[in-house]
C-alpha cells in the first residue's frame, strides 16, 4: 500500500487568521524569533496497491477539485518515500 500526501496551504497573499492566532500565541508563550506562521491542511491518502502514475494523476485531479480550493489555496503533492 502506497501513501500520497497532499499539503494544502492558503496562497501567500491570502489572510491566514489561524496562522496569525498561532503566531500570536507563540509570542505570548515566549517563543521568540518567529517571523511568520501559516497553517494549512495535510491529507494522507493511503492507496490500495501501488502509486502508479495513473493513480497519482487521479489523486492530483481530486486535489484540484476537492482537496484544495483554487480560489484561495495552493497545494503540493508527493508520494511518500519519494523524497
Amino acid at each position, binding site marked *: 500500500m502506497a501513501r500520497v500526501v497532499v499539503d494544502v496551504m492558503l496562497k501567500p497573499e491570502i489572510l491566514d*487568521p489561524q496562522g496569525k492566532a498561532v503566531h500570536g500565541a507563540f509570542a505570548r508563550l515566549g517563543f521568540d524569533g518567529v517571523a511568520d506562521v501559516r497553517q494549512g491542511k495535510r491529507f494522507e491518502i493511503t492507496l490500495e496497491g501501488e502509486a502508479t502514475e495513473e493513480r497519482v494523476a487521479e489523486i492530483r485531479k481530486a486535489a484540484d477539485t476537492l482537496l484544495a480550493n483554487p480560489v*484561495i489555496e495552493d497545494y503540493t503533492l508527493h508520494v511518500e518515500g519519494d523524497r
Partner: protein
Amino acid sequence: MSTDTVSNATSTPDVEQPWAELGLKPDEYQRIRDILDRRPTSCELAMYSVMWSEHCSYKSSKVHLKKFGDIPQETPAGKMLAGIGENAGVIDIGEGYAVTFKVESHNHPSYVEPYQGAATGVGGIVRDILAMGARPVAVMDPLRFGPLDAPDTKRVLPGIVSGVGGYGNSLGLPNIGGEVVFDSTYLGNPLVNALCVGVMKHEDLHLANATGVGNQIILYGAKTGGDGIGGVSVLASETFADGGPTKRPAVQVGDPFMEKLLIECTLELFAARIVEGIQDLGGAGLSCATSELASAGDGGMYVSLDKVPLRDASLAPEEILMSESQERMMAVVTPANVDRFLEICAKWDVQADVIGEVTDTGLLQIDWHGERVVDVPPRTVAHDGPVYERPFERPSWQDDLQADGAEKLPRATTGERLRDTLLKLIASPNLCDKSWVTDQYDRYVLGNSVLAQPEDSGMIRVDETSGLGVAVSTDCNGRFAKLDPYTGAKLALAESYRNVATTGARPAAVTDCLNFGSPEDPGVMWQFSEAIRGLVDGCIELGIPVTGGNVSFYNQTGETPILPTPVVGVLGVIDDVTRRTPIGFTAEMEGHQLYLLGE
C-alpha cells in the same frame, strides 16, 4: 519604483491613464480632470474610480432612491434619529433606547467564493451597525439560490450557509431569521443579503464625520493586505519597474475572531466617550473612509499612508487606498484622548495607529514616502459622483406574462389529486423545512432571543427589566415582483409588516435590499423604478419610513436578469416581550377558538 505624485501629475498632463480599465466612462474621467484642473495622480484615479462605481456612488439608483424622502420621516414608535445616508438608520424606541438595523448584499463575492463571500458579508453589515454606536444584537440572512438540484448550487449553497454561520456564530450574534428561496434565475447569481440589528442608548449615537481641526485619525483593527484589489492592480503595475506587483487576490478572507475583538474594543471606546467620529472600512476601504469622514465633517484631512500597518509590504499606495481588507475601523479622536484610545485597543489585542489628522484645508491630502499623492476636495470623491438618469421602459413581454393567468392551469378534481398537489407543494424546496440551514446557526447566544426559527419574525429582548423588545422580519417573493414589480414590492412590504405585526410588535421602520439585473437594461430599470414606487406608496399607506438599505445591480447571466428581488425588512417595537404571540399550536392551547381575519 516611481510614485505618481501631484507635482508629477501637474507636469505631465498628457500621460495615458487606464481610466477605462478601472470602469470610468470618458466623460467621468474628463470630469475628474475638470475638478482637479489637472490630470489625477494614479492614487487619485484609484479613489475616484472606486468611489464613483455603481456600488459606492449609487449613480443609477440615486434619482429613484430620492423618492424614499417623500415618505413622512416619523415612525409609529418614535423619532428617526438617523436615516438614509448614514451607515444605518436609527430609531427611537423609547425608555432611552434606540435601535439601528440595515440589510446589505454580498452577492457576487459569494458566487466567487461562497464561504468567504457570505462570511465577509455578515462581517460588513455588523461593522456598519457597530459604527452607529450600537451593540450588534442579532443577524438575519435572506438567501436566494439556483435550482436545488443544479450542480453549482451544490457548491454555492453549503458554502454560503456555513459562511453565514461560521462568521455570525463566531461573533456571538443570534441568527433570528432569514429566507431560503430557489429559482433558476439565481443560478450564477446567488443572493446573499445580510441584516444586522443593533441596540444603543440615545447618547451613544455616533456619526461618521471628521470635525475639530487637530483631531487625530486612528486606523484600528486588522492590518491592510491586498484583499479585493484585483482590479486596481492595473494602476499599481505601472509603478513597478519590472514585472508588475505580486499576485493580488480578488477575494477577501474574513477573520471573525478579529471582528469580535473589534466589537468589544469599539464598545469600550464608546463607553469611555473618546470617539468623536467613526466609520467602518468596507468596500473601497481607506478611499471611502477618508473621503466620507472628511466630506461629512469640516472637509479637511491629512493622512500619511506610510503609517498604515501592512500585512503585505509590497503594496503600492494605490493598493493601500483601495484594499478591502476586512475587520478595520477608522476613528476621529482628540489629541488628549489618543493615549487612552490606544490603551483600550491594546487591552483587546487590537492594533491601532494614528495615521493622520483633521485639517482646515478643505482638502483630503495624502502623502506617501514624504510626497503628496492625493490632493482633492473630499466631497467630489464621496458625495458628488456622477448621477445617471438611465432610460427605463416597461418590457414588451410584460403584458403576455400578466395575461398568462393561473386560472388556465389544470385543477385537481379529486381528493387524491388534491392530496398529490399538496404533498408536492410542501415537499418543494421553497416550502420545505429549512432546518438543514437554520440548525447551523446559533439562535440562543446573548440570551435575548424571544422568537427565532421557525417563527415568522425574529424577536429580541432589549431590556430585561421592562421587557421592551424589537421584532424583525424579511420577505420578498420575486415571482410576484416579476409579474408586477410595483405590486410585488408592496406585497413584500405587506408580508414583512404582517409577520412583525402578528408577533404582537408594532411595525415601525423599513430597510430594503434591492437586488436587480443590469441597470443598463431599460426593462430592468423599469422593474427597479416600479419597485421603489411600490415601496414608497406602501410605506406611505402603512405610515412607516425607509431608514436605509442597499442596491445590488448587475445580478444577471448574459441577457437574463434575476427575478426582481426587492427584499424588505420591517422592524417593529413591542413594549413587553412576554406578551409576544408565537406561531403554531401547542398543547396548552387546547379548547382555544380559531378565527380567520381579512378577506
